[in-house]
C-alpha cells in the first residue's frame, strides 16, 4: 500500500526501475523470438502477421516502456540528491507521472491478450496504420497506450526542469552542476518540446482511426507524409532524450573511477546543448527516400553531419578524463568504458547514414538496425547498466556482486557485438529490415545465425543481472555513504540509502565537485547551509493511482467505442483532480528529535 501512495522520489525511482525492467524483459523476449525466427532462412516459427506484431511491440516497448522508464528511475533516484534537494519540485505530479506511464504500458501490452496487437511498426506509418490496412484494434492500442504513457513522460520532464531550476542547494550554480544533472536538465527541456508533438500526432491518428477524420487519408485530401514529419519531429529528439542521460551517467562514472575531475566540463555542457539543439533540426534524415527533393535532402544531410562535432568533443573529453587518471575496473566502470568505443562505432555509422545518396542504399536495411542498436543498446543500455551498478548502493544500501557483474558485462558486451556488428554487412549485402524471413542462398544465412547466437548471449547477461539483484537482496545493508570512496557529488555525502528527507541540513556548495573539494580540504562532511529544524514533507496520496486507473478505463472505452465507459473513466480522473484542488493538504513535518530515527526506504 505504501508503494501505491508514495510521493517520495526515491521510492518512485524504484517503482520506475521495477516496471521499466519488467518491460525490458518483455521487449527482450520479443527480440529473442524475432532473432530465433531469423536464425535460418525460410523459418516458420512465426507468421508474417505475428512477426510484424513482434517488431512493433519490441520497438515500442523498448523505447517507451523500458529505456525511458529506466532513465526516469535513475533520475528520480539521483537528481534530487545530486542537487542537494529534499524532493522534486512537484512530488504529487511525480507519482502521477509514474502511474500514467505504468497504466499506459499495461494497456499497450494487454493487446497481446485482446488478440489485437499493433502491427505497423513502432513508427506506425500511415496508410499501413490506418483502419483500411490495419483493421481491428491493434493500432488503437498503440495510439491510446502511448498517449497515456506520454502524459507521464511529459509530467516528468516538466517536473525535473522545475526541480533543477528551483531546488539547487545554496551555492550550487548552474556551472557547478554535476554532468548527470546537466544532461537530465537538457533532456527535460527536450521532453517538454518534443512530447507535445507526439501527443498531437497521436490525437490526429486517433481521430483518423476512431472518427474517420482525414488527416492522413490521401484520397480525401489528407497527407501521409505529414505523419512522417510529425512522427520524426518528435522521434528524432526522442533519440537524444534517450542518449543524453547516458552521456551524463558515463561522465559521472568515468570521473569517479579514474579519480579525476571531468575533462573540459564547460565544453561538455555546451556540447550537450548543441546536440540537443541540432537534434531538433535533423528529423528529415529519417526521410531521405521519402522524396523530399534534393534541397531538403542536402540541407538535412549537412545538418546531421554537424552533430558529429559536439559528440566528438564529448568522446575525447571522456578519454582525456581517463588520461592520467587512476582507473579502477569494476562492473560499473567497465560498462562505461565499453560504452565509449561502442558508441563511437554507432556514431560513425550515423555520419555514414547522414550522407543522403548513400542512405538511399542503407535506409530500411539491416545496416540501420545495426546502427540504432549500437546507439541505443551500446549507448543507452550500457549507460543504464553502468549507472545501475554505480548508484545501486545509494538506492538500496547494498553493492551488487562483482563476480556476477563481470559475467553480466562480458556476456552482454560480447553478445552485443556479435549480434549487431554483423548486421551492418547484412544490410550492405541487401537484406531489408522488418522481414519475417529471407530466401536461402542470398548470402544472408551464416550472418543471421551468428547474430542470433549473439542475441541469446545477451539474454544470458540479462539473466546474470537478475540473479545478481536477488543475491544482493539477501545480503545485509552495509554500503557506506560514500560507497566507492571516490564520490565527488552531493549524493555521496548522505547515508546509503538516504533517509526520507535526504538532507538533514541542506549543504553549502563551495565549488564544482562539491564533495570532492571538501574531502580534499580534509573535511569529513559538507558545511551545512541551515540550522537543524523541522523538515516539511508532502503527504502520500492514492489519487495519482486512481487518476491513472481512470485514464486506463477511459482508454478502453474509447477503443471499443463504449462512450459510457470512456466517460466514467474520465469522470474518475476529473473527480480526483477536483478533490486534489478542493481539499488543502499541507503535508507534515519531521521534527529534529525524530530525524535521528533512520527512516529508510
Amino acid at each position, binding site marked *: 500500500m505504501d508503494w501505491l501512495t508514495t510521493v517520495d522520489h526515491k521510492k518512485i525511482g524504484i517503482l520506475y526501475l521495477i516496471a521499466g525492467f519488467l518491460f525490458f524483459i518483455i521487449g527482450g523476449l520479443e527480440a529473442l523470438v524475432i532473432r530465433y525466427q531469423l536464425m535460418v532462412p525460410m523459418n516458420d516459427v512465426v*507468421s*508474417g*502477421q505475428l512477426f*510484424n506484431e513482434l517488431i512493433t511491440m519490441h520497438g515500442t516497448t523498448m523505447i517507451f516502456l523500458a529505456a525511458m522508464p529506466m532513465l526516469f528511475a535513475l533520475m528520480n533516484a539521483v537528481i534530487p540528491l545530486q542537487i542537494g534537494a529534499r524532493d522534486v519540485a512537484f512530488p504529487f505530479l511525480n507519482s502521477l507521472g509514474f502511474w500514467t506511464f505504468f497504466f499506459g504500458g499495461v494497456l499497450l501490452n494487454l493487446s497481446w491478450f485482446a488478440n489485437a496487437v499493433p502491427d505497423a511498426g513502432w513508427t506506425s*506509418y500511415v*496508410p*499501413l496504420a490506418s483502419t483500411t*490496412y490495419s483493421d481491428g484494434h491493434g493500432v488503437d492500442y498503440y495510439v491510446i497506450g502511448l498517449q497515456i504513457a506520454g502524459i507521464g513522460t511529459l509530467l516528468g520532464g516538466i517536473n525535473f526542469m522545475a526541480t533543477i531550476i528551483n531546488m539547487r542547494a545554496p551555492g550550487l550554480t548552474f556551472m557547478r552542476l554535476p554532468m548527470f544533472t546537466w544532461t537530465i536538465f537538457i533532456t527535460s527541456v527536450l521532453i517538454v518540446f518534443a512530447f507535445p508533438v507526439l501527443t498531437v500526432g497521436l490525437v490526429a491518428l486517433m481521430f483518423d482511426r476512431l472518427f474517420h477524420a482525414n488527416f492522413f487519408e*490521401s*484520397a480525401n485530401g489528407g497527407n*501521409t507524409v505529414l505523419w512522417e514529419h510529425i512522427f520524426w519531429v518528435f522521434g528524432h529528439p526522442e533519440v537524444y532524450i534517450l542518449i543524453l542521460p547516458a552521456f551524463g551517467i558515463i561522465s559521472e562514472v568515468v570521473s569517479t573511477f*579514474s*579519480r579525476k*575531475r571531468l*575533462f573540459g*566540463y564547460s*565544453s561538455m555542457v555546451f556540447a550537450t546543448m548543441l546536440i540537443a539543439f541540432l537534434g531538433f533540426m535533423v528529423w528529415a534524415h529519417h526521410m531521405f*527516400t521519402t*522524396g523530399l527533393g*534534393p534541397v531538403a*535532402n*542536402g540541407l538535412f*544531410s*549537412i545538418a546531421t*553531419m554537424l552533430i*558529429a*562535432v559536439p559528440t*566528438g*568533443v564529448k568522446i575525447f*573529453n571522456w*578519454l582525456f578524463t*581517463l*588520461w*592520467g587518471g*587512476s*582507473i*579502477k*575496473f569494476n562492473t560499473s566502470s567497465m560498462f562505461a*568504458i565499453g560504452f*565509449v*568505443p561502442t558508441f*563511437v562505432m554507432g556514431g560513425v555509422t550515423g*555520419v555514414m547514414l547522414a*550522407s543522403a*545518396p*548513400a542512405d538511399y*542504399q542503407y*535506409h*530500411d536495411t539491416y545496416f540501420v538496425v545495426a546502427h540504432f542498436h549500437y546507439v541505443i543498446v551500446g549507448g543507452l543500455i550500457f549507460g543504464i547498466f553502468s549507472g545501475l551498478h554505480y548508484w545501486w548502493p545509494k538506492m538500496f544500501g547494498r553493492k551488487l556482486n562483482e563476480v556476477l557483474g563481470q559475467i553480466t558485462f562480458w556476456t552482454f558486451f560480447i553478445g552485443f557485438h556479435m549480434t549487431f556488428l554483423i548486421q551492418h*554487412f547484412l544490410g*550492405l*549485402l*541487401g537484406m531489408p529490415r522488418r*522481414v*519475417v*524471413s529471407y530466401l536461402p542462398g*542470398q*548470402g544472408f544465412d*551464416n550472418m543471421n545465425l*551468428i547474430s542470433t547466437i549473439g542475441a541469446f548471449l545477451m539474454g544470458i547477461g540479462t539473466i546474470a543481472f537478475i540473479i545478481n539483484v536477488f543475491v544482493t537482496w539477501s545480503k545485509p545493508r552495509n554500503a557506506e555513504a560514500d560507497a566507492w570512496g571516490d564520490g565527488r557529488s552531493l549524493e555521496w555525502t548522505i547515508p546509503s540509502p538516504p533517509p526520507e528527507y535526504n538532507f538533514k541540513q541542506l549543504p553549502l556548495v563551495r565549488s564544482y565537485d562539491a564533495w570532492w573539494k571538501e574531502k580534499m580540504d580534509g573535511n569529513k562532511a559538507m558545511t551545512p547551509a541551515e540550522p537543524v529544524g523541522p523538515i516539511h514533507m508532502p503527504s502520500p496520496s492514492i489519487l495519482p493511482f486512481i487518476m491513472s486507473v481512470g485514464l486506463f478505463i477511459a482508454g478502453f472505452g474509447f477503443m471499443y467505442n463504449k462512450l459510457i465507459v470512456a466517460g466514467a473513466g474520465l469522470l474518475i480522473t476529473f473527480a480526483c483532480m477536483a478533490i486534489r484542488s478542493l481539499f488543502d493538504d499541507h503535508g507534515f513535518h519531521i521534527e529534529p528529535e525524530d530525524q535521528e530515527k533512520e527512516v529508510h526506504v
Partner: protein
Amino acid sequence: MNRWHVLKRLLPLMVGLMLILSACGREDLSTLNPQGPVAQSQYDLMKLSIGIMALVVIVVFAICIYVLIRFRRRKGDNTIPKQVEGNHTLEIIWTSVPLILLLILGVPTIQQVFNLSKDYSQDPDAIQVKVTAHQYWWEFEYPDYGITTAQDLIVPTGKKIYFQLHTADVKHSFWIPAIGGKMDTNAGITNKMYLEFDKEGVFRGKCAELCGPSHAYMDFKAKAVSEESFNNWIAAMHEPAQVAADAEIATLFTNACLSCHAIGESTADSARTGPDLTGIGGRVTVGSILYNDEAPVADNLVEWITDPQKIKAGANMPSAGDMGLTPEQVQGIADYLADYKLNY
C-alpha cells in the same frame, strides 16, 4: 576442452566469415558489388565515408587502449591524480579536425544529391517507366509504348531509365540494390528517379518499406537486355494474347482469372487489380519467390494458384478452392501459362 580445441572449432567459422565478407555478396544483389553507374556513385560515397570513419574509429580505439593499459590503478595505489580542468588547444583540435573531415564528406554528398535527382522525363533517349506498388507485387507500365507488365521489369542496357513511382495502397519502397538506391512510393504522391543498367543480367529488387504480413516476399526482378532484345520484347508484348489451346481451359481462365488479371493488351482497370500475366511462362519467378530455375514453371504455378496465402499471407488473390477449381483444372491452367513465353 583445451584452448587449442576451441580455436580449432572457431577457425572455420572465422575463415568462412572472412570469405563471405571479402566476396561482398551476390553480384545481382549486394550494394558492395555495384552493377551500374548510380549504384557505383553511391558505393563511392560509401567507401569515402567508411574510410573517414575507420580513421576516426582507429584513433579513438588507439587512445582508449593506451589509456586503459597505461593508467590502470595498481593494487594499493592511493595517490590522487592531478585534477586537470581542460585544455583549450586540444579542444580546438578535436573540434576543427572533425569539421574538416565532414567537409570532405559533405561536398561530394551535396553533388550526388543533386546529380541523382536529375529529371529525364523529357529526354527522348530515356525510357519512361511508371511503377505502381501493390500489396505484394509490382506493376510496370511503359507509357511511351503502351504496354504494362508485372514482377519482371525489362529494360535495355545503356539508357537512362526514368521511373515514376506510385502506390495503389500502402507505402512501399522500390529498391534494386546492385543497380541503385531506393525510393518510396507514397499514397497520393509521385516520386521520380532514374537508374542505369550497364550490363545485361537479372538483378534482384526488393520492397524496403514495411507494408504488411508479406512485406518480406515482395521481391521483383530487373532484367537488363540488349537494345535489340528490348525492342523485340516490346513487339512481342503487342502481339495478340496467346489463348489456351483447350477451349475448356480457355473459358475457365477467362472466367476465373481475367476478372483481376490482364493478358495481351487488355487495359480495363478491373483487369489490373492483379499482375499482368502476358508471357508469364518466361518470367524468372512465380509470386516473387518461387524461382523457375529451381522448379518447373508449371509446378510453381500450380503451387501458387492452389494456395497463394501459403506463399504470401495477406495476398489479395483467392485460392483455387475459393474459385471452385479442381486440381486438374489448376494443372491445365498452369500448363497453358507455363507455355506462354515471349520471344525476345
